[in-house]
């Protein structure tokens, strides 16, 4: 377990390092940071002065060192547009995106677990085929289109739900359905496949032979074992949702990190963009690391394999 822990942490550290370089390149090399600070009206003399003042004329490796030191202190740079610290901009947007991602995952799991289990209980039945068809269809729907259709149906035609903004919980219903239904198919397939495999195992036959009720077999024996890979995938999907939130948030005008990213993109506000890439990647790395460790803690076979 300790060896696994160390090797996974080392890998996570390497990935953080690699991603920090990508983000640094994005904000310091891909665009001229001096012209970003100065704005469009700056003269060459202004740019030169800014380069000297901010140290953009120094070797990149030193600038990268400063960048990393800043990130460690929680200083992610300053927005070109608003002049506010990027960390503050992101911090105030975290609650909306976190709420959206949690609701979406909850929605996806609430559909995926029962559907996956029911489909696995009767493979090749109409229910199983229906669930798989739903998965194939769901995976092919572009999520921004689904969002627009939901707006047309529930927002405009039926007028049940608000379609834009993030002030109340009701504002999150349609976005969470949009984002969650994109994650649902993969989760459902995994639960179904896991359950089918587990239900064929000898210990389930033994449990049946011992006369345990179907319900006890399902929930106490089968689901518990089938759910292991789902932990990893949920972590992965959660990361995808943070990344995918940019589309859904821009459709529904939710004031989250994704919306901030989109606003910054259209105005080339690089410090904000690189900070969001860094932040979402870090969340993903931490989540997958935790999922791996949790899996190892729950499943001795994974521990021994390493």
């Amino acid at each position: 377990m300790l060896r696994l822990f160390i090797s996974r942490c080392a890998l996570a550290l390497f990935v953080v390092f690699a991603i920090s370089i990508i983000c640094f390149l994005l904000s310091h090399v891909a665009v001229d940071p001096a012209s970003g600070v100065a704005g469009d009206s700056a003269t060459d003399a202004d740019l030169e002065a800014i380069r000297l003042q901010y140290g953009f004329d120094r070797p990149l490796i030193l600038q990268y060192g400063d960048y990393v030191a800043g990130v460690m202190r929680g200083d992610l740079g300053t927005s070109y547009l608003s002049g506010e610290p990027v960390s503050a901009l992101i911090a105030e947007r975290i609650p909306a995106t976190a709420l959206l991602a949690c609701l979406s995952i909850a929605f996806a799991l609430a559909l995926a677990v029962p559907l996956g289990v029911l489909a696995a209980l009767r493979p090749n039945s109409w229910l199983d085929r229906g669930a798989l068809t739903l998965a194939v269809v769901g995976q092919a729907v572009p999520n921004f289109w689904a969002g627009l259709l939901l707006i047309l149906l529930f927002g405009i035609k039926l007028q049940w739900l608000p379609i834009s903004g993030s002030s109340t919980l009701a504002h999150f219903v349609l976005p969470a359905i949009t984002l969650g239904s994109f994650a649902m198919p993969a989760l459902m397939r995994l639960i179904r496949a896991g359950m089918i495999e587990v239900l064929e195992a000898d210990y389930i036959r033994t449990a049946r032979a011992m006369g345990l009720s179907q319900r006890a077999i399902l929930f106490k024996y089968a689901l518990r074992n089938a759910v292991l890979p789902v932990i990893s995938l949920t972590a992965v999907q959660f990361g995808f949702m943070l990344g995918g939130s940019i589309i859904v948030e821009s459709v529904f005008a939710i004031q989250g990190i994704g919306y901030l990213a989109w606003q910054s993109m259209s105005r080339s506000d690089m410090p904000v963009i690189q900070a969001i890439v860094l932040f979402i990647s870090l969340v993903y790395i931490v989540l997958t690391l935790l999922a791996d460790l949790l899996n190892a803690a729950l499943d001795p076979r994974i521990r021994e394999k390493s």
Partner: protein
Amino acid sequence: MLRHGGFMIGGGVLVLLVLVAVFAPLLAPHDPFAQSLALRIKPPFWHEASVAGHPLGTDQLGRDYLSRLIYGTRISLAVGFGAVLISGIIGITLGVVAGYFGGWVDTCIGALITTRLSLPVVLVALAVVAVVGGSLTVVLLVIGLLLWDQFAVVARTATQQLRHAEFVASARAMGASRMHVMCREILPNIRAPLTVVATVEMANAVLIEAALSFLGLGVQAPLPSWGLMLSEGKNFMFFNPWVITLPGLCLFVLALSINLLGDGLRDVQEGGR
């Protein structure tokens, strides 16, 4: 394979869409770029206010919607095939090398794969387009350079399983170079799972292009990208819902046909084992 319903439907629709893309100039009733101020936002044929000659109506600049949808097939398919070609070459090379050599090579490539997986694709693609500027080529390249992870993961696992196979050992014993073994012995034998990955990633690439264009940081106007049409249409959708249902439906049908094809391939492979 020919008896698999999903495979046949998916493959059939995809072939049809490829034909539509190839013969777009012959099929489109109008020039997809020709504007007409008098004919802005005219509804499709089932609507009583529709105008003759524009069976699927016109957009906010009076351009024929059917023609734009037909030409849009070209953009989506170009991105789909192009991006998969690029990502396939990168991912399969990395995966086969990692799986064949193992050891520290595998560790390094594994770390590279993990790094790529940690990057949010849409966000990074958007950031690159924001820096470089949006165009069809940029979008195609960026998506291709980002989507190689699954190719690498699958190629690596499949190669690891074959590394110690007898035919690989005998090829080595006969004096075949490592390059030869990887390209001629291993690659043909891991083709099947990689084809399935290719379909998944192609559908992915199509949807990502549409998402980037929808957000205004992808293919640029006046090109008739379906994602861009959705973005332009969303300001008019409240009174004219068809401006967003039609391009979205095209995207959905294309992605669905690719997914059905991939699912069919997977079923046939698993059934054959």
